[in-house]
């Protein structure tokens, strides 16, 4: 592992760092089956992401990506960029270079250009005729085309412009979904938030769309590290989603993201009521049995199993387009919660036994616990000599005395200061340039 686990640095700092990270080949990932769950841009993006971060899968991923770009998009820029990267990788390994399909590039370039011209002319025509529906369609088509060519900002502009020409709720939802799709790809999650809200306020949303909106909102929250909200939204996602949103996310992802976020942010009762007893989410969990196992293991306090599963799948998740940034924080939180939960029923715990159940050594565990105690997450103290963790005996009476004495002093000080200040103001003794 090339990530330094010891440093508990804030998520933002981590984000910058992880861009440079290389991941060793994952244990469970089968690239073909994994990527078959997706289509469209996210498929390409995910492949390129894996290629960038995992040298072992690099070549295969680039090849699949190139294939996908060629068959389903008109994005010749991305094609060339990916091909150059692939050739770099190939030459580094001393293998024959990949032949760039220049005929395709040229023809696509031309086709893209002529289509833009055609669509823009049509749109102009529609605008002259002032037919709302046609104008909307025109904008949409142009947006679709831009999206296809990979110029996302232009696509976003076109999609947003349709807003003024929406006449029915269906149109609004369509516009919102388009904007959300492009925004997610652009990483502009604040946009996602506002358009999800807009879409949700329209009447009669079909269940599929509802699920799509939930997932989009959840992704946005995940991005801003609000794991609890994200978890709740993932858990509320209806199974109607199935493969209907594969240009953004697969149902497997919902299970993984939702499961991890829930583990990292829910307490035990919530875990039971919102995850384990959630019939809708169970269907998602069927897709990723190890996540189900993980959650059950956590709930039944089999921490060795939990940590084992987490460790096994870690590399896989580090290659996930949306999850990679947050993985360390999520894992950290899950581990912390496990430690807290382990200790909760006891007055004293033998550190040796505890270290065993967490598959770690005593000194390391001691440090982890010390950190939790300083963060006030566990009310306990460590007997380092006898290697025992003891729950803290709270003496409320002394605490109240201490607090009230402190409060009294504060009160005196603040009041005196305030009186002085009032009098200063009253006499206009203000620090000033000339009024000496």
């Amino acid at each position, binding site marked *: 592992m090339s990530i330094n686990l010891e440093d508990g640095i804030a998520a933002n700092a981590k984000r910058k760092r992880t861009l440079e990270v290389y991941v060793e080949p994952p244990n469970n990932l089968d690239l073909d089956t994994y990527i078959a769950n997706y289509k469209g841009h996210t498929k390409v993006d995910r492949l390129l992401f894996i290629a960038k971060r995992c040298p072992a899968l690099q070549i295969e991923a680039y090849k699949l990506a190139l294939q996908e770009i060629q068959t389903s998009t008109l994005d010749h820029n991305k094609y060339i960029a990916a091909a150059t990267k692939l050739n770099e990788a190939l030459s580094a390994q001393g293998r024959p270079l990949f032949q760039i399909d220049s005929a395709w590039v040229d023809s696509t370039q031309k086709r893209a250009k002529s289509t833009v011209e055609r669509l823009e002319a049509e749109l102009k025509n529609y605008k002259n005729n002032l037919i709302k529906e046609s104008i909307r369609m025109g904008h949409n088509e142009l947006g679709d085309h831009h999206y296809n060519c990979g110029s996302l900002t232009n696509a976003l502009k076109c999609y947003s412009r349709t807003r003024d020409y929406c006449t029915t709720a269906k149109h609004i939802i369509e516009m919102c979904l388009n904007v959300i799709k492009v925004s997610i790809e652009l990483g502009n999650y604040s946009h996602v938030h506002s358009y999800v809200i807009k879409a949700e306020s329209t009447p009669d949303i079909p269940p599929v769309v509802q699920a799509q909106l939930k997932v989009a909102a959840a992704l946005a929250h995940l991005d801003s590290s609000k794991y609890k909200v994200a978890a709740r939204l993932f858990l509320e996602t209806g199974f109607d989603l199935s493969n209907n949103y594969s240009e953004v996310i697969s149902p497997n992802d919902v299970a993984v993201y939702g499961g991890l976020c829930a583990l990292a942010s829910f307490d035990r009762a919530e875990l039971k009521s919102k995850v384990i007893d959630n019939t809708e989410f169970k269907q998602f969990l069927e897709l990723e049995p190890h996540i189900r196992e993980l959650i059950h293991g956590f709930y039944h306090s089999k921490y060795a199993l939990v940590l084992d599963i987490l460790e096994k799948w870690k590399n896989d998740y580090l290659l996930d387009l949306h999850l990679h940034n947050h993985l360390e924080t999520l894992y950290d939180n899950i581990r912390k919660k496990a430690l807290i939960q382990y200790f909760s029923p006891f007055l004293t715990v033998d550190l040796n036994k505890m270290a065993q159940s967490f598959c770690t050594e005593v000194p390391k565990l001691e440090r982890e616990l*010390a950190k939790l*105690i*300083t963060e006030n997450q566990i009310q306990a*103290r*460590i*007997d*380092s*000599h*006898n290697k*025992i963790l*003891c729950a803290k*005996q709270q*003496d409320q*009476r*002394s605490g109240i*005395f*201490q607090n*009230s*004495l402190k*409060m*009294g*002093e504060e*009160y*005196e*000080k*603040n*009041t*005196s*200061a*305030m*009186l*002085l*200040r*009032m*009098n*200063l*103001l*009253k*006499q206009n*003794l*203000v*620090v*000033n*340039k000339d*009024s*000496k």
Partner: protein
Amino acid sequence: MPSQQLPNTIEDLLNLVSSTETSLDQVTKQLLPILRQLPNSFFTGEHTRDPLDLLNATRNSLVYAYFLDARCRVDRPDVPRLLGRIFEFLDKFDQQQMQLAPEKCTLSIRMVDSITITKILKKILITVLATVQDLSKLATQYGNSIIIFKPLANTIIKFAPSRNHLTNLHQFFLKECLLSKVYTQALPILDQDITEIEPQLTGINYLDHLLYHYYGGMVYIGLKNYDRALYFFRLVISAPAAVTSAVQLEAYKKYALVSLYLYGKIVSLPKYTSGVVIRAVKNYCQPYQDFAAAFESLNVKRVRNELQKCADVFKRDKNLGLAKQSMEAIFRQKIQQLTQTYLTLSLADIADTVGLEGPNASLIAEDYILRMIETREIFATISHSHQNGMVSFHDNPDRYNTSLTITKIEAHIAQAAAVNQRVLKTDHLIACSKEYLSKQHLALSGGMPGGLGLTDEADFYGSGNCEPFIDEGRFYG
């Protein structure tokens, strides 16, 4: 009128003085204008007998002060004799005469010319200050500057309308204390919180307030009473300000270091701190804030580096010693933290966690712990029966069930009640004030819709003294 003629000799003056009544309005009306017109040399003129022998320091305080001031200004004053005189004067002077408190003046004077009174008053205040300044100069020449402090402190207490009043003597006194390093002498004055500001009575300006509290903070640092030092610096920084005073910036620098020493971070300033000051602090005290940021990370290496980086600045500001002290505080804070986390821990482990380095790390750690146990910052026992020395941390053995606690709490309640009295008084004054009443009147009778008066009132209390009242309830409850 006879008073319009200036006396030609000291004899004349003395006659005039003895013929004038000692009542306040007479002194103000007749003597002062004359005294003010006489040149300094007049008072040092030759005379058969020492005029000061003929004058009574209590009854003729004003004239006495003029003589003293003039004598202090000659080239070679007869120091021992003069000191005796000044002490006698400071001991006996009539503060009413020196202060000319308006409420003591007869109504007629106030009505005649309140502006002149203020002017006269200022002159007198300056005279006292000058006397005091002369005194310290003399004492320094005499080679024994310490003798002045007791009389000075007494003067201040006598001179101030109440012990909570600030006078223009305060800051001067503290400065002398600082210069001569006699910090304890300042305590009787410093331990009284200043809350009353009346420039008409005490001739102060904003600088007096800033300097007094700034010097006060420094005195408290000298006495290692950091808590109170912090409070004093906070008063300086949060003083109402339209522009930032250099005193405030210096105060902030010391505030930052003391705050680090006590709490390991810069304690946030009161909400009412002026925006200009906060901006100026950002611009001019950057090294201090960097140092604080390093400090907050509790990373010893980082703090050491930062201290090295800022050492020049700190040295220039004469704060290096303080910074080094707060550097030590980091170890103490970390040990304090350990008591929350551990029941037992070996000395070696403590040294390691705290960040002490070198071959003697455990010994240094032991030293810190011993000192902390002594000062009752932590409660622990060290056992050397194990090879490395094992420290067991205990809870605070004070269960708050002794008579000591009761005494302490009662003292606090009494103090709080005293503060509360002052709050009530202020509240009463405000309730009686013209501005408040007219506003109330306006709100009630003006027929303004939406209860403008009510919202105004709430606002008014919020900025003034509503909060303490709530606290008060909690305190007694």
